[in-house]
């Protein structure tokens, strides 16, 4: 088993007394002061998340749009320049190899963001599908997530582009403090936020520069997880895997059922027997991945993610249950190690006051 890797921000985390854990083979902060405080600060103000471990792939060449429209579920050919789209990299059976965001930087220039644990395999799978195109795995680039209702305010003095005209799920090449970067208005928290992509050598300085503003605080993986769960966003490896597909995951909204991408046929023929649901508990007692879910006393499924929701002061999570136990409002029971907890299937997102789509005014 190889040693976990450090991101370029490791020393920054240590100097802030972060609690470090191994996530996807990288040493990352799970928390600095408190998961709950970091979560609430992101919802109310602005936080920084080290996401340098994630994969960044530049794809260029004539016909890139058409080839990508086959390789991934997103219709890259119809994607306007300057826009981003969430979707999946599927295998022939419709199983999810990864969930991804594709961003169009130019007519034949695309930027793909993928998960850390799957990035090497993603590129191995994509290469034959994108034969003839130029694929660059930008391993010397880093990523920082800047998320929260005050994030535009915190970024304004450093970025050249006009943040008031960068709409939700848009992307642009710009400069941060004079250095070339890519900036997208995307994120994993449900709040107004940005992902900043730039060469690793600049990132430690950028991190410090942003933290000079008293509005800005660092946040770790613990808060990242409770934030995304409140939004019912899936986490690859928990809600998505190669043996699960977008229909199981209740994510049909994110692809065209008449599409022509790898896995589309298999999806058309597939009728799920189980469905991914969002769960809200009645108390603060948490449930955890692997916990059994029952309906009317019988086994109905399994929890895939669970956490305490600081915004709602109750336990929340996600899990797969039999189709007939998956309607909104269904009353289920989760069996944890210590207790049997009543939960309800909720509409997503659980947290509805997220600012991710607001019109930015500065």
């Amino acid at each position, binding site marked *: 088993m190889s040693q976990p890797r450090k991101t370029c921000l490791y020393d920054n985390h240590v100097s802030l007394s972060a609690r470090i854990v191994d996530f996807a083979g990288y040493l990352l902060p799970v928390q600095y002061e*408190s*998961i709950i405080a970091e979560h609430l600060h992101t919802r109310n103000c602005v936080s920084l998340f080290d996401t340098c471990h994630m994969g960044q792939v530049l794809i260029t060449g004539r016909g890139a749009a058409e080839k990508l429209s086959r390789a991934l579920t997103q219709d890259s050919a119809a994607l306007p320049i300057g826009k981003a789209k969430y979707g999946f990299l599927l295998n022939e059976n419709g199983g999810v190899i990864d969930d991804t965001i594709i961003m169009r930087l130019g007519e034949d220039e695309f930027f793909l963001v993928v998960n850390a644990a799957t990035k090497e395999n993603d590129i191995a799978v994509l290469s034959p599908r994108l034969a003839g195109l130029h694929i660059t795995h930008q391993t010397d680039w880093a990523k920082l997530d800047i998320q929260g209702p005050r994030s535009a305010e915190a970024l304004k003095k450093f970025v050249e582009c006009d943040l008031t005209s960068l709409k939700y799920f848009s992307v642009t090449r710009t400069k941060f403090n004079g250095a070339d970067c890519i900036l997208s208005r995307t994120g994993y928290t449900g709040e107004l936020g940005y992902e900043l992509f730039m060469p690793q050598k600049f990132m430690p300085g950028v991190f410090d520069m942003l933290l000079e503003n008293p509005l800005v605080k660092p946040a770790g993986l*613990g808060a990242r997880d*409770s934030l995304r769960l409140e939004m019912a966003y899936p986490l690859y490896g928990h809600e998505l895997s190669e043996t699960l597909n977008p229909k199981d995951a209740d994510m049909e909204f994110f692809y065209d059922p008449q599409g022509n991408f790898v896995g589309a046929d298999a999806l058309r023929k597939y009728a799920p027997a189980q469905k991914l649901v969002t769960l809200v508990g009645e*108390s*603060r007692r*948490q449930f955890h991945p692997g916990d059994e879910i029952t309906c009317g006393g019988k086994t109905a499924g399994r929890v895939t993610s669970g956490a*305490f929701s600081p915004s709602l002061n109750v336990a929340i999570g996600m899990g797969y249950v039999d189709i007939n136990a998956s309607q909104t409002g269904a009353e289920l029971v989760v069996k944890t*190690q210590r207790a049997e907890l009543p939960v309800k299937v909720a509409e997503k997102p659980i947290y509805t006051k997220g600012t991710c789509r607001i019109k930015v005014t500065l």
Partner: protein
Amino acid sequence: MIPADLLYTEQHEWIKISGDTAVMGITDHAQNSLGDVTFVELPAIGKRVLQSEEVCSVESTKAASSVYAPAGGEVIEVNSELETAPELINQDPYGKGWICKLKLADKGDLEKLLTPEKYKPLTEE
């Protein structure tokens, strides 16, 4: 932080004796290891425990943890504020974060407890 007027256990609980009764909770080291406390399963009034038996449990963003009785006895009072504000354990583990009060069964149990000086090295691993 290790107050001088308390006694301690190897499992990071503290106890303050007043005659036949005692107040208990978990130490600053324990709350720091746990992270944000999100739920406290308070014991029932009348519950009898032996020394080192589980008296209740505490859940945090990180894990669920058992809390053990520093001395044997009967639970006579619980800190019901912890039902709505379990974070008191993080904020003030020796004060407002107290967990329950015990009527002591056997004062001999107290001899097995650690003084602040003996407890301190356990917090420095």
